[in-house]
């Protein structure tokens, strides 16, 4: 059975390739959401197995979306991996690659690293 992944990131080109590359492994079904404001609604509607969430997005920051998702009964069990361009202090000083209780992975990211991380979190 394939893992269902929701990618929330405003970078259209980036999400295009991540979706293509993840699907090419044959292990994932991927839905892309480029509009941060729609992220929570999409998550509730689609109930993915895992969400890849960009931190720096116009409108709503990724951490805020994560907090909201954790408060909703329908979405609170969905694991989240933050995607980050590593531009803020806490992103480098946080220990064990965690931000706000979630794992994060820095852009640019090689697809096999991403797969490894997803396997670890979604297991």
């Amino acid at each position, binding site marked *: 059975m394939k893992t269902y992944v929701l990618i929330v990131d405003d970078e259209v*080109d980036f999400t295009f390739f991540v979706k293509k590359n993840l699907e090419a492994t044959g292990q994932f079904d991927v839905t892309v959401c480029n509009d941060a404001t729609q992220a929570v609604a999409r998550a509730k509607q689609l109930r993915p197995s895992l969400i890849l969430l960009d931190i720096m997005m116009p409108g709503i920051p990724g951490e805020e979306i994560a907090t909201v998702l954790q408060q909703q009964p329908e979405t609170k069990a969905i694991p989240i991996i933050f995607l980050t361009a590593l531009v803020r202090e806490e992103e480098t000083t946080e220990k064990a690659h965690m931000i706000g209780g979630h794992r994060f992975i820095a852009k640019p990211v090689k697809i096999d690293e991403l797969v490894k991380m997803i396997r670890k979190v979604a297991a």
Partner: protein
Amino acid sequence: MTLNRKLSVWFVVVALIVGAAGVIWVQRAQVLKRRLNEFANLTTPALVALGQMKAAAIEFVAVPSQPSQEAYGRFREWLAVYRGVASDSGEQATADRLEEAGARLQRQAVESGGTHEAERAFAKDIDAAIALKLVALKRQREAVNRHAAAAVRLSILAVAVFAILAVGVGGLLAGSLARPIIRLSEDVARVGAGDLRHRTAVRSGDEIGALAQALNRMTENLERTTVSKAALEKAYAELQRAQQQLVQSEKLAALGRFSAGVAHEVKNPLAVILGGVEFLGQQLAGADADTKTALAMIEKSVQRADTIVRDLLKFARPSAASKERVRPEELVNGTIALLTYGGSLKQVTATTRFAHGETALEVDKNQVQQVLLNLMMNAVDAMPAGGSLTAATSLTRLADRPACAISVIDTGEGIAPEALPRLFEPFFTTKRDKKGTGLGLSISKTIVESHGGTLTVESAQGSGTTMTVTLPVSAEGSAA
């Protein structure tokens, strides 16, 4: 005693001396006057009386047959006058003898018509009286002369004594006035020349004493304000240093914000490129070797650009430096331990040499360790065939403040002279073929300077390089 009182006392003393001299002198003058009066009042009438007596006697014996009662009466009148002015018992006796002689002469003249013998005897008596009077006169004149001379001597003595006293007392007074003033003026000159610690020792209850105290108070105030001027200059210098550091950290903060923005804008396209390369790699799974090499080169470049952006962020991030007291030895040993356990030393032998004495630095330990690690890694890289790395600390001064120098010395290939001036420029690297990004030394320099220190290099091609980090030591001196 106030000056006013001192001067008053002096005037009283002088007035008493002058008064006493005056009183004595007036007394003497009065005695002299009396003597002169005596001389005038007594001696002259006596002589006149004697002359008149002689004339009267000659008259009443001139005509012996008719003795003149009238002439004898005149004789007796002048005798009374003579008696009246007789100055001593001798003259009274003379008067008695003259009276007796006059009476005898008159009697003889009446009885016997006069005799030459009686006349001669009388004339002899009169002449004797005159001679006697002349002797008295001489005596009196001598006495007057004596008194006059005494008065002159006394005047001279009084003038001399007065002059000596006036000069003596005046001198003492002037001295007692002038001495403290002279000392005070010397003290003022000394203070004026800049010796603000000097205090005048002049003590006195008068206005000069008050002036001396005022001078001491003034000097004290001056010393206080002068001392605080020095403190002010020091504080100003420190303020300037702090300001420079602030400007530096402001610059860093601005650079940090700028770099964060750049990093975000660069990393996202890098992520797209990497994703694209991987996608193409799958799509072109059966492509020729050149195509695969091209894709691999693109991916490698993406990784390289990513590393540079990471370093740039490290370099520019305004870190919330958490400063702590740490001993330089601890920093050096900790860094060497990192190299040793990380297996980075390879063929290189590391030794340390520490300065004597306790010194502590007030630094962000992680940042400074990052600097030392960077310097030591460079040193190891400079000795690919092995060599010796020495980390040495020494006490020195930086901008006139105590500082600690940490030197990293290698025996490697050295740095080419043309590379030295560009060594600390961002993105300048001599390890372009390897993993270097050219940011290590400029990051290190930025970190050291943000700690108020300096990073310097000495290198001779072929004989090695010495990199020295100099940091101000913590104000408290020794490590806690």
